[in-house]
């Protein structure tokens, strides 16, 4: 393996397989967000929360590269995987246009996911908009592992909230919207301090500025709480050979590969100022 510049552990690629998966459900969740169910028993069995998939959205070479999506649901019994995504460009538009019976190639599971607490714990999931994607899977796994789960679900507006009712896991939910169209009016960090007092570990996914703010709060809490964040980077491959997905994790020269050492990183490993200085992944 390429010597990672940052001394962070790397994912086990030996678990990944590349399969043609049949689309078994296409769900329009409104406001440009979708949930897609894919028949892919092998990956459904292997995936762990926070890991991701590389989806080839079209047999034609436009778009050329696969698109990374967090595993949103993995049902080994049904042999299915779910992804939750927003339409932001040509690749996600193609995905939203798929119909039941279409086939897409899916490579996974990839990356390092969230770490589950060894024993009973009080987990807090903080989701910003589409950043909710990894949490249905994570929340079920946490519950199954005996943890209590509180989901802080934030979005700009009600239509952009992940429909937590689809979860099927016993979670407490706090809803926050910027326009107040559902739940508390505000942003997740407005209510986070209160929730932190009842949490042993925090899992977050969302826009970088939100993650940085969450990290600051977790670190400065009266009792600092361990935080893991899922990050995004433009990806060439998803499996560590293009070296395209570098993320700043230390001083100026310390970079980690999002696809192998991430996408989930401990908050303290991240170089937040450098991360915030990057252009958003969706323009690269």
């Amino acid at each position, binding site marked *: *393996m*390429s*010597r990672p*510049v940052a001394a962070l552990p790397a994912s*086990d*690629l*030996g678990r*990944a397989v*590349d399969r043609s998966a049949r689309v078994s459900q296409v769900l329009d969740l409104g406001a440009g967000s979708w949930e897609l169910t894919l028949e892919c028993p092998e990956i459904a069995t292997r995936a762990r929360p926070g890991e991701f998939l590389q989806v*080839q959205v079209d047999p034609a*070479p*436009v*778009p*050329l*590269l*696969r698109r990374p999506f967090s595993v949103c649901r993995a049902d080994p019994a049904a042999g299915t995987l779910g992804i939750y995504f927003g339409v932001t460009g040509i690749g996600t538009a193609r995905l939203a246009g798929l119909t039941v019976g279409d086939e897409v*190639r899916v*490579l996974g599971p990839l990356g390092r996911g969230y770490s589950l607490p060894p024993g009973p714990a009080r987990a807090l999931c903080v989701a910003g908009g589409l950043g909710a994607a990894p949490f249905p899977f994570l929340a079920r796994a946490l519950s199954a592992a005996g943890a209590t789960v509180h989901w802080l679900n934030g979005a700009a507006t009600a239509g952009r909230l992940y429909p937590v009712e689809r979860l099927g896991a016993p979670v407490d939910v706090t809803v926050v919207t910027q326009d107040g169209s559902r739940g508390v009016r505000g942003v997740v960090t407005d209510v986070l301090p209160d929730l932190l007092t009842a949490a042993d570990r925090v899992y977050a996914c969302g826009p970088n500025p939100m993650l940085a703010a969450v990290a600051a709060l977790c670190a400065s809490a009266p009792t600092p709480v361990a935080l893991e964040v899922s990050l995004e*980077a*433009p*990806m*060439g*491959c*998803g*499996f*560590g*050979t*293009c*070296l*395209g*997905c*570098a*993320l*700043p994790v230390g001083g*100026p*020269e*310390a*970079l980690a590969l999002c696809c*192998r050492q991430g996408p989930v990183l401990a908050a303290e490993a991240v170089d937040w100022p450098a991360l915030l200085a*990057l*252009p958003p*992944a969706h*323009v*690269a």
Partner: protein
Amino acid sequence: MTAAAPATLDPRVDLGRGLVLPNPVGVASGTFGYGFELEQLVDIQRLGAIFSKGTTPRSRPGNRPPRVAETTAGMLNAIGLQNPGVEAVASEYAPRWAGWRVPVVVNVAAEDIPGYVAVVRRLAGVPGVAGVELNISCPNIAHGLDFGQDPQAAARCVEAVRRATPAPLIVKLSPNVTDIGAVAAAVAAAGADAVSVVNTYLGLKVSLALRRPVLPGAGTGGLSGPAIKPLALAAVRRVRQAVSIPVVGVGGIQTAADALEFFVVGADAVQVGTATFRNPAAALEVLDGCLAYAAAQGLRRWTDLRATARPADAPGPTVGPGA
């Protein structure tokens, strides 16, 4: 051209100085790491060769992000030669390669001639290193251009490296030149055993939202992928006319048909690059497709596919492109 009499294909390709690839389909530098990642995903031992990530005298952290950006049927990269340095490659990676069936050719980059020489010296005679591929598309501080953009600078670099190593030496050419044939001829005369054609094309992507290039620094990156295939084919054909040493074709190959097209214009072997990102098994599928085609067509050597002189099929003038 259908196979009437049974013929047996010799799939091997001799790149010179003892470097004989088991088959003509390798994987391109910078798209396959040092072979270890993909080892876990696909049967890399069946490949014709692995061309490693560009390796420099000392370790390099690479460029700051973002480093890759998609374009229509292509991608730009500005990785900045992130690599662990030649010492780690020679002492840690090569011993593992020594047990592999697939030949590993180390792609070499440096900022100046002493740097290139230092890297190839360190690799000389190291078991597991099947050869070196010299990436001369690196900024040549003295001239303001890349070594590969100036036939004389390229030749000087290759001569120095040639003296420093007995290893099979493949020189990887930059396509960002007025006449790639002239560069090819210069490096062949300077002692290259073979040439790889081509490295990436200088490209740029703009973010309209940010009103600036997407990639950092100058904003330029190297364009690869299907978009460049017609350019790479033209470059290979030009180089084939300019030199008689083996030519390794690379640029936009996704399928066996693509690879076979490179053989038609004179390539002896090929490398699959960006296609691996779309499909980790791409190179193996290209190989299998080429073998199936060879069997169906009764090829005995890959060079059987070379374009014969074009018949003067119809009268009429022919001028250049863009017309």
